[in-house]
């Protein structure tokens, strides 16, 4: 049989429209199984019929849908288009004949797995980012600590140098009558004019008072800065520089220091053996 003639015989149309006889139907179905082009021609006519019928769609009586769902024992799902004269264009359900249609559940699971995977990757990235941030912060702190250590080392070194320097004059401050136990050492580097003070024994003062170091230059007191005495007395204090000094004195002044010393509060005093 010539397939082209068969296709053009009107059998497709008879079959699709339900006008073919039983034997014609059987033959047509048998040939469809053998000839994909026959199936394609049938499908094309079916699509034409469907499109035409949809174009001619009539509004359905609204109660019919409710009655149908009552009859099949389910409640009608709400719909916007149940009474619409022209049904909306839809994705043709049975158009995709592949078996993949039957894998809806599998698709759902696959989709869920993909979502889960994405979530996990995201969480991993978050954790990694956090880790990186912390490492960076840690490194920053290390650098800061090292820098602080270096600065401290340098200061200690400088001070050790000053103290051990042959140019440095050590002035042993001794207590006055009003504070016989007070004692401190002044290290005066005459070359660099630096003045360091090591408090040996100075009583703790009320919060509104501070000790003040003076250099006595040609009989006149010159302010070298204020300091607090604490129990941890071993600290070396860097005071203001002075090029000249015949003696050093420590007084008790109000917090922040005074422009001129309160001599009756003189705590200790020492003579610079080396004068410039």
């Amino acid at each position, binding site marked *: 049989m010539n397939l082209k003639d068969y296709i*053009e*015989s*009107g*059998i*497709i*149309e*008879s079959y*699709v*429209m*339900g*006008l073919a*006889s039983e034997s014609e139907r059987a033959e047509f*179905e048998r040939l*469809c*199984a053998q000839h994909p082009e026959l199936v394609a021609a*049938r*499908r094309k*006519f*079916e*699509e*034409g*019929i*469907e*499109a*035409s*019928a*949809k174009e*001619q*769609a*009539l*509004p*359905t*009586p609204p109660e*019919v*849908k409710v*009655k*149908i*769902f009552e*009859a*099949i024992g*389910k*409640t*009608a*799902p709400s*719909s916007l*288009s*149940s009474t*619409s*004269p*022209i*049904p*909306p264009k*839809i994705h043709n*359900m*049975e*158009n995709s*004949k592949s078996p993949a*249609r*039957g894998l*809806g559940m599998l698709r759902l699971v696959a989709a869920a797995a993909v979502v889960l995977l994405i979530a996990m990757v995201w969480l991993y990235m978050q954790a990694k980012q956090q880790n990186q941030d912390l490492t960076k912060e840690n490194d920053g702190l290390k650098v800061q600590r090292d820098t602080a250590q270096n600065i401290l080392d340098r200061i200690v070194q400088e001070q050790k140098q000053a103290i051990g320097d042959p140019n440095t004059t050590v002035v042993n401050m001794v207590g006055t009558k009003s504070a016989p136990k007070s004692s401190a050492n002044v290290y005066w580097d005459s070359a660099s004019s630096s003045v360091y003070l090591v408090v040996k024994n100075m009583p703790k003062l009320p919060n509104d008072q501070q000790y003040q170091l003076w250099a006595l230059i040609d009989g006149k007191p010159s302010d070298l800065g204020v300091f607090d005495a604490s129990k941890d007395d071993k600290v070396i204090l860097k005071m203001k520089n002075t090029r000249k000094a015949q003696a050093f004195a420590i007084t008790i002044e109000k917090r922040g220091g005074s422009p001129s010393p309160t001599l009756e509060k003189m705590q200790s005093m020492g003579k610079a053996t080396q004068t410039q």
Partner: protein
Amino acid sequence: MLALKERNNQAFGFLYDNYAGALYSIIKQIITENNELASDVLQEVFINIWRKIETYDQTKGRLFTWMLNIARNASIDMLRSKGYQNSQKNQELPDNVYKGGVSQITQQNVDNIGLKKVLEKLKPEHRVLVELAYFKGFTHEEIADMMSIPLGTVKTRIRNALLQLREYLK
């Protein structure tokens, strides 16, 4: 499709929303005079679709084709039922229609809708055969008998008419 075969409520509602209008149009082209009966047929058709969905074989055609044939068969059954005949008793008897010949049927269906509208483009002698076969549900033999033409001619004319129909549907 799977959702339908599993009797998924949502899928069936979707099916209804998208095809009921088109099927109702076909039903009304067959049951022309009685809207109430047409809507009863529509209801029956969808209940049948629901019940028989697992018998739908997609190798034999598209879902719409299957539904369309259910709608057509149900409509023709209704057309031939006693209830329908009684409701039409004041109308012309079918026999009179056929005796009146081609022109009368042609006249009767001028303002028709859907596929019938497409049929208007066919030659009258072709068109009446399709009318009788498709919309009235008569077999080729019955038509040959009624029209007093050879069965072979009926078959050929119907086939030719359907082929023309295909051209109009393109």
